[in-house]
């Protein structure tokens, strides 16, 4: 064989190039034989998404991320990725980030739009919807705070009405006085009770948050468990707030009643002790609600630690 050596070397070169080419494609999660096409999406926060991270539809890998570019003009992160040829992604599909950067497992999930829509062309754009486990809490907590805020405003205005009524010496509150006294006492009791429950709820949330932040073992399963617990805790907090809300509503009804039977209000004016008790109850409620408003923020700061580690 005259060209025996050349043949051997040539074969080795070709073989190694094939291994290299398909090896890189395989580990990059690019389909080995069929081609792929590029799509484009954008996030406000890339959450550690990098080149080569998998792209999934319903948990099935279908491609990977090619480029992650910071777009300072529009204050967003442009993400280019490719998916297998022949995969039909209808218009109206959305993307979201899943997984945690801390564990190197950030993924780009595509939620398919209505199947009737025409498919996206290569280079098409998908809008993003951010909602991963931690993002849920992050987005849910401000809502809760907002609700507490509304509630507080409602309570304050209701109490302001009460105050307004009391300031009117012509009003007859005599008959309602006993009812108010009882109501105030029960409100007081209720608030004290609620205070304990809310405090203990926040305490347990706090414990969870601190245990979450001290959670250095990189375990996704346990973490997601914690995140679930946290979620249910927040749901509980939500329920508690609902109770508080209905209590305030009751108070509202009560005041409407007072408004209707005006005759006994004069007695209330002549009884400064009662007035002060009502006032202090209102102050307690106000303070408590302010506290709730403050506490979740502190607690949210704790939560953010999770993001950092």
């Amino acid at each position: 064989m005259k060209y025996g050596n050349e043949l051997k070397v040539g074969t080795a070169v070709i073989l190694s190039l094939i291994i290299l080419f398909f090896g890189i494609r395989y580990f990059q999660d690019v389909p080995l034989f069929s081609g792929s096409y590029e799509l484009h999406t954008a996030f406000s926060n890339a959450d550690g998404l990098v080149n080569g991270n998998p792209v999934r539809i319903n948990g099935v890998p279908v491609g990977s991320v090619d480029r992650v570019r910071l777009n300072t003009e529009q204050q967003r992160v442009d993400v280019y990725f490719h998916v297998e040829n022949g995969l039909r992604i209808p218009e109206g599909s959305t993307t979201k980030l899943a997984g945690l950067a801390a564990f190197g497992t950030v993924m780009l999930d595509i939620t398919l739009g209505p199947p009737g829509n025409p498919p996206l062309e290569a280079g098409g754009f998908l809008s993003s919807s951010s909602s991963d486990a931690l993002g849920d809490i992050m987005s849910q907590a401000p809502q809760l705070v907002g609700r507490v805020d509304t509630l507080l405003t409602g309570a304050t205005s209701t109490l302001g009405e009460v105050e307004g009524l009391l300031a009117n010496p012509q009003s007859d509150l005599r008959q309602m006085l006993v009812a108010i006294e009882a109501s105030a006492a029960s409100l007081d009791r209720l608030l004290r009770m609620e205070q304990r429950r809310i405090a203990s709820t926040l305490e347990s949330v706090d414990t969870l948050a601190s245990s979450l932040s001290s959670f250095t073992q990189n375990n996704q399963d346990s973490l997601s468990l914690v995140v679930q617990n946290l979620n249910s805790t927040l749901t509980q907090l939500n329920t508690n707030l609902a109770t508080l809300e209905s209590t305030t509503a009751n108070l509202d009804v009560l005041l409407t009643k007072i408004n209707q039977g005006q005759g006994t209000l004069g007695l209330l004016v002549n009884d400064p002790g009662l007035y002060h008790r009502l006032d202090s109850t209102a102050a307690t409620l106000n303070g408590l609600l302010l506290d709730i408003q403050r506490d979740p923020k502190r607690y949210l700061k704790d939560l953010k630690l999770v993001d950092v580690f």
Partner: protein
Amino acid sequence: MAVSSLAITTPIRNLGLYVLLLVKAFGSLGEFSLYRKNLFTQMVRTGIDSIPIVALAAGFSGAVTTVQTAYQLVTPFIPKSIIGSIVAPSLILELGAVVTGFILAGRVGARIAAELGTMRVTEQIDALEAMGLNSVGYLIVPRVLAGVIMFPILYVFACFVGIGGGILVAQIGGYLSIGEFVKGAREFFQPFDPIFGIIKSVVFGFAITTISCYKGYFTGGGAEGVGKATTEAAVMSCVYILLADLLLAVLLL
């Protein structure tokens, strides 16, 4: 000359000799017809003939790394795919090139030094020169080129067989499934990693072949000199592989 000044000047002289040899070799690169035939012979001896031993070593490296990583990761919280995330990059970034390097330092480096050393002490190099042949171009250029070209190819094979060995042991030994292994490997895969490995293998191939050619080409002192050159070529190649490994990691990673 005093002993102390010799201790300083000798290494510098040797470095100069080495560099001049390289310059002469590069100067002869253009005379392709001079070394074309030798080039393919050397490529077969350096590359093709080394495939079995490189594959064997790489396969076992992959298998052992897998078993040891599995042994160290006993915590149930850590997903098993992490084994794939550790074994594959280890092979691609480090073991594939370094294991191949050490094997070639012994197998190819020693052979080159012994061949050229024998040619030197039996005046075969003089005979080539006396004919009007450029002995550096004829003997050294094809050996260095063969190393630089074939080493990356061996590296690719080493990674292929190494990862294959890891997967095989993972599956057979029941440590984790192929799917988990590949999933883990994919999660941390960077396209630059194999590029880095190839750069490394080119540098290693260059280091081994040039050091061995230098040692062999300037052999003196008969059979004993050839033995000394052979040993030194293998040892120096290993030392410079380690140095180059560190240097490249610092520079490129």
